[in-house]
Structures are given as structure tokens and as C-alpha cells.
């Protein structure tokens, strides 16, 4: 029971990462590797600020700002510097590693005994693991509603069009470069927020905590899509969060099978690869048909 609650809580908190990446990966059609750096950047910023006596809320806002800055750098490299999207993200991500070490001064900072967003009076009153569930629900609800509202504005529609067909967007006077930069900033701001929350939830920031985050983010997006099929845009945003929770439950099951936490990145990649190959597998093996055949009586 506790493990399940913990998995749901983790799923909700990590869903932010998926939602952030959804903006770039699915809507802008931009595979943004920056998140591998932005996630620990958010964590490093928040944890360092808290350990210097900054209030957890303000520290979390710093983390969002730092994330947006990272997004801005990738955006400028891509739009003004004409560096391919993948490489622009990798460059920023690599640079952020050094920035994180500068911010933290060492490779690991603990928050032991320090205030966090999770040990406020309300959060502390909740039973174990329910604090992350509560925090996750609050943050995800706010972010999802903001995204739904944003995407339904004139600006948001222009944003979607930029990712969908940049040639058309330009021919309608949409400044696609600006849209890409804004999208990367908002997306990385969300990833920074996610890093800050996870670090406060875990009670520490580690220089290596970003490794594999892009796979986790993609997994929540893809699992959500595979599990729920054809959806409207708004429903898809909710599906990302559900996908993130399903992913955590899959991890839980796998760990129960006897794998160690050291295998997590391997498992993440395998889960994502399987999910991405499902449509192909279905085509070749006729999965649906053979499954249906198995449950239908012979005629």
C-alpha cells in the first residue's frame, strides 16, 4: 500500500517533466536534450538557495527562473545560431553540468534539517508519502489548467501552428523563432520546477540526478499515448500525467521482481523502447488479432 502511494506521488511529481517536454517534443516538434541539464539545474538552484537560508518557495521560483534561462540559451543557439535542435540541446546540457557544480560547490548537497516545501505545517500533517501526492496533485492541476488555457489563446494557437507547420506559420506572420524560444523557456522552466520539487522531496540534490531524465519524460508521454489512444489535445495533457504514474507503477513492479535501483536507467530505456515499438510490433505480429483469436471460441 505504502509503495503504491509512493509510486503515485512520484508519478505525479515527475509528470511535470513529461508536461514540460510535451510542449517542445510534441507541440513544437523539437527534441530538447536541455532537460537533462535543466532538471539537476533546478534541483541545484533550489537546494543551494535553501541551504543558504532562502525560503523554500522563493528557492523554487529561482529554480524555475534558472530553467527558463537554460531554455533561452538553447533557443538562441537554435534560432539565431542556426545550430540543429538536438545539438543545441546537448551543448546547453553539457555546459549546465559545469554550471551546476559551480552553483553547488560540490557534487551533493543534503537538505537534512532544512525547511522544504514538503515539511510545511500542512504537508507534515499528512501521513507518510501522502505529502508528495498532495503536492503533485496541486502542482499538476495548476500547471495543466494553465497549459490548457494558454493553448486556447490566440498566442497558444500560433504556438501550436509553429510546431505543426512552420512554413505556414511564417506565411501568416507568426514569428516562429520567438515561439520556439518562448516554448523552450516555458518548457525548461517547468523542468526546473520539477527538479526543485524532486530534490526537496528526496532531501538532497546530486550532480548526476539528471541522467536519464529525458527518457523518463518521453516514457510518460509515450505511455500516455499508447495507453489512451486517440485523444484531444487537452486530454493528452492529462494522459501525460497518467502515463507518468503508470511508468512509476511499472518500475515498482520491476523492482519487486528483484531488479536493483542501479538498473533503473536500463529499465527506463527498455520500457520506453517497448512502448515506442508497440505500433510496429502490432503491425508485424498482428498482436490484437492473435489475442482476440485466443479468447474467441472456435467456429
Amino acid at each position: 500500500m505504502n509503495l503504491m502511494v509512493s509510486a503515485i506521488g512520484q508519478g505525479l511529481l515527475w509528470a511535470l517533466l513529461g508536461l514540460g517536454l510535451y510542449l517542445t517534443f510534441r507541440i513544437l516538434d523539437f527534441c530538447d536534450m536541455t532537460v537533462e541539464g535543466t532538471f539537476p539545474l533546478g534541483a541545484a538552484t533550489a537546494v543551494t538557495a535553501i541551504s543558504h537560508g532562502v525560503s523554500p518557495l522563493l528557492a523554487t521560483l529561482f529554480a524555475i527562473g534558472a530553467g527558463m534561462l537554460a531554455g533561452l540559451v538553447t533557443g538562441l543557439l537554435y534560432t539565431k545560431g542556426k545550430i540543429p535542435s538536438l545539438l543545441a540541446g546537448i551543448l546547453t546540457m553539457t555546459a549546465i553540468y559545469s554550471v551546476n557544480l559551480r552553483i553547488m560547490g560540490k557534487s551533493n548537497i543534503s537538505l537534512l534539517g532544512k525547511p522544504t516545501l514538503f515539511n510545511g505545517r500542512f504537508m507534515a500533517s499528512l501521513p507518510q508519502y501522502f505529502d508528495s501526492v498532495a503536492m503533485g496533485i496541486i502542482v499538476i492541476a495548476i500547471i495543466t489548467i494553465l497549459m490548457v488555457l494558454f493553448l486556447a489563446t490566440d498566442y497558444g494557437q500560433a504556438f501550436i501552428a509553429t510546431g505543426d507547420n512552420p512554413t505556414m506559420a511564417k506565411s501568416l506572420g507568426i514569428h516562429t523563432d520567438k515561439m520556439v524560444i518562448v516554448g523552450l523557456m516555458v518548457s525548461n522552466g517547468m523542468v526546473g520546477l520539477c527538479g526543485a520539487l524532486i530534490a526537496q522531496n528526496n532531501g538532497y540534490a546530486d550532480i548526476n540526478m539528471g541522467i536519464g531524465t529525458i527518457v523518463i519524460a518521453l516514457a510518460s508521454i509515450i505511455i500516455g499515448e499508447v495507453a489512451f489512444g486517440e485523444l484531444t489535445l487537452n486530454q493528452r495533457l492529462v494522459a501525460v500525467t497518467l502515463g507518468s504514474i503508470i511508468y512509476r507503477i511499472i518500475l515498482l513492479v520491476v523492482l519487486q521482481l528483484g531488479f536493483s535501483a542501479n538498473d533503473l536507467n536500463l529499465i527506463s530505456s527498455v520500457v520506453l523502447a517497448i512502448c515506442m515499438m508497440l505500433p510496429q510490433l502490432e503491425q508485424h505480429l498482428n498482436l490484437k488479432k492473435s489475442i482476440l483469436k485466443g479468447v474467441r471460441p472456435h467456429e
Partner: protein
Amino acid sequence: MSKPILELRDVQTVVNKGTANETTILKGINLTINEGDFITIVGTNGAGKSTLFNVIGGNLGVDAGQILHSGVDITKSSEEQRTAFLARVFQDPKLGTAPRMTVAENMLLATKRGERRHLVHRQLKANLARFTELAATMNNGLEKRMTTATGALSGGQRQALSFLMATLKRPDILLLDEHTAALDPHTSLNLLHATNERITHDHLTALMITHHLEDALTYGNRLLVLQNGQIKADFRGPEKQELTVEKLYHYFED
């Protein structure tokens, strides 16, 4: 005498500058487009027709010369800035619409062509009736697919939608780059009729590139022959009416 809406003065463009492949595509184009002109443009492949459109549209820079819109120099203004008065329909149906957005959403985007877009609600429902009515004028069932993603439309419907979007907000200049070339003969004819009707009814100023000499003769009040980066002939009014396919064909022979 109608007033000039767009002027090109000795416009030249060079590609692959500074390399062995340096080529001058437009070699000094002088063209005055008057309000209400419907100009058809013919010419061999590589004559510079598409380059001319790209130069007018602003996605290709000018190496010499000047472009004026209603007397204002716009040579240096960007593609995005020019969309305030200029609309385009591309040859490829895929280029003109956003495939994952619905027909109505695409039309909504087009109503704000060249305008700043704000963080205000898009008001799709309030516009739906007007959009549906407009879609019905294309006579191809587009009005029944308002909430379909455009990626699921036929090429003809997509191209009709692209044309509608280009004219939703009245442009000073409409550029049609072989916009019916990718369609079957019947669909192509349908769209050409609708195009002609819209342009003459609304007195739009339009430039249309075509490879069909008959179409170039049938439509419009002016015909340009582009050859080797220069305007070889410019037939207007009665002069254009007397023109035949045979006479026009001579320009393509050497």
C-alpha cells in the same frame, strides 16, 4: 487609372554568392502592379517565377534594386512583416495548412494574418458559423469537415482551404504559386473557378504562376512571360485577349 500597389525596381538576386556556382536568378526585374490587377505568369523551369514570388514575399533577400508597397520601401522588411498585406498559396497542399489542427482552427489562425497574437481566448465558437459559410463556397464538402484535422483532408480540400485562408483577411497582394498543379484536372478546374470568382468579386490584386498556357490566357487581365530572370513580355487588357496559345508557345521554343 488605378494606383500602383507594388513596385519592383531593377530587382536582382544572386544565389551561391562567392562560390563557383554563383548564379544571378533575377536579372533586373522592373514591374509595377496596379490595384485590381490579376496577373498570370508563365515561363520555363528556372526562369525565376518562384524566385520572383520569394522576393516579393520576403523569404529571399534582394541583392540590388528596390521593392515598394504603396510607395513605401519594403526591401528590407521581413517575411513576417510583409504578411500584414500579403498572402500566399503554395503549390504543395501540405505547406499551406497545419495538419494536426482542425479546418476551423486553421481558418482562425488566418484571420489574424500579420497581426500580433495575444494571450486572449481564441473565440473559435463565435467564428464557426462564418467559417462554415465560407467553406461552403468552395463546393467541395469542406463545410462538413470543420472539426476534422486538416491532415485527414484530400489534397483538393486542403488546397481549397489554403486559398480560403489566404483571402479570409483581405490581402493587398495575393500570390498563387501554381496552387492547382498538384490536383487532378477536375478538382484543379473547380479551384481555379473559385479562385477567379473570389478575385474578381472582391477586386483582389493577385499574381498567379501557372504552367497551363490556356489558364494563363483565360484568367486575369495581364500576362507576364518570364525568361532567364527577365520579363520578356507583359501583355495587358486587349493585347492579352488577342493572344493565343500558339503565339505564347513561341516564347518557350528557344
